[in-house]
């Protein structure tokens, strides 16, 4: 119960800081637990005995431990944290793909991740994968026909678009996936900076494209390991550490504090 009083207090502060801005995403005491079948023995000295495992080698990973925050319209929020801190889990829960074990995410429109790779079939030609990826993103057939040339052009695959995708180099595949995913506009968008792919030239172009999408979206979450791009583009930064929201606020302050722990 002490928990709820605490959120109540936080909320009073949030309301004050909101200054009448419109909230678009509210994350309420979010917990995510994965149950994983653990193979092998746990590392000695981690304090996990066999007794603590819940039978049959199933181990529970508590990826998010009660994260709460509110995002407002037109905010550009950077999300930072070391590998395995729960950033990706948080983002997947924001878009509703990973159901929370406890707590909830509320939003004015369904947030979307930028990405389409999983819908594509490597044995098919690039052409057909554009169709399939576009349909997976929710475009109609007519819309895809309109977008097709732009996608091919952006991916720089004019010569190879009729070849099976598995024959593409990894850079070409990544370009195609990015070009398809980037064809859609979103109201609330989550961008994983690792998406900027390919050789240096294409990386520049994809970064520019991400920036463009970000500018057109209402509210953006940017997950990145590059503090420079976070400081360049974000108006607020959230630092996730071991599944807990460590810090939330002004980009400069949060990034400084984060980098302090990395030394």
């Amino acid at each position, binding site marked *: 119960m002490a928990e709820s009083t605490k959120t109540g207090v936080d*909320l009073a502060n949030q309301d004050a800081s909101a200054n009448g801005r419109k909230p678009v995403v509210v994350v309420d005491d979010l917990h995510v637990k994965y149950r994983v079948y653990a193979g092998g023995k746990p590392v000695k000295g981690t304090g996990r005995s066999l007794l603590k495992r819940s039978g049959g080698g199933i181990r529970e990973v508590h990826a998010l431990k009660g994260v709460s925050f*509110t995002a407002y319209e037109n905010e550009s929020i950077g999300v930072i944290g070391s590998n395995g801190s729960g950033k990706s889990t948080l983002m*997947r829960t924001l878009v509703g793909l*990973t159901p929370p074990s406890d707590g909830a995410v*509320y*939003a004015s429109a369904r947030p979307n991740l930028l990405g389409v790779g999983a*819908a594509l079939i490597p044995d098919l030609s690039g052409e057909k994968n554009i169709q*399939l990826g576009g349909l*997976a993103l929710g475009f109609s057939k007519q819309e895809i026909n309109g977008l097709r040339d732009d996608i091919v052009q952006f991916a720089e695959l004019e010569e190879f678009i009729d070849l099976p995708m598995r024959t593409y180099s990894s850079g070409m595949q990544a370009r195609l996936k990015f070009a398809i995913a980037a064809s859609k506009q979103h109201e609330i968008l989550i961008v994983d900076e690792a998406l900027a792919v390919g050789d240096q030239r294409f990386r520049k172009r994809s970064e520019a494209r991400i920036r463009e999408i970000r500018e057109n979206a209402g509210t953006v979450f940017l997950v990145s390991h590059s503090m420079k791009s976070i400081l360049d583009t974000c108006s607020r930064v959230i630092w996730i550490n071991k599944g807990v929201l460590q810090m939330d606020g002004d980009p400069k302050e949060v990034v400084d504090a984060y980098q302090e722990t990395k030394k």
Partner: protein
Amino acid sequence: MSLAEYADRNRLHRVGARPSLPRYLADAWGRRDFAIAMAKYKIEASNQRNRLGMLWIFIKPTLNALLYGAIFGILQGASRPENFPMYVVIGVFLFEFFSTSMNNGAKSITGNGALVQSLAFPRITLPVSTVIQQLMTLVPMLGVMVVYILLLGAPITVEWLLMIPLVAVFTMFNLGVALIGARLTVHVRDLTQLLPLFTRILFYTSGVLFSIETILASHPWAIALFDYHPLHEVLSIARGALMPGVDYDPMYWLYFSVWSVAVFVAGVLFFWSAEERYGRVD
């Protein structure tokens, strides 16, 4: 005021919440092009690297029918049904539609983990797409089946048209089974291991290769039970429609339609009610 109330006051909706059934079905209908494209492209992709390509759609069941026909033809000796080759071809080809729908349908969520984890769409699209894929495979197979039956000496009759409503009802039945299977394997992955066994049990109890009436002649009560076996009903109707001199109880149409509607409705409700669960990775 809690955060939930705060969210509600600002008219925010819970992300990932399961929509109402009519809304869900409408969303799924909006994704029909995606389901169809996925089915079509998967067939293309799965055969693309084989030299004989699409021909495998016909070759595999034909070889199956030949093998089963030869073995069970010899084993059954004189007690085998009349027009045995036709009997086996119809049985094997139609049973294939059911077994692939059930098996691939059951794996349609668990086997597409990456897709379920990265894009938002009504998950029912996946099992539906699997059954569409099997239906797209079945239609040319039925063409081949008809050619075989003609070669084996059956006359063309108006009754053959009954295959169209039969396939429609059969598809509804298979879709229901696929939906139930898709959700069950999400809860208990181990079921995937049991599916081949389960398929075989159904294969040998549906009268694919032998006539139930002859085998169980001394147990009339058991034969009566088979009147309510949905797969036995489908095969009996199909043989009655296609083969010369074979009759079936017209009530089978009613029984099988009731089965199909019941399994389909149960499947949709059962699958929909766990919609929020499918993205979880445990």
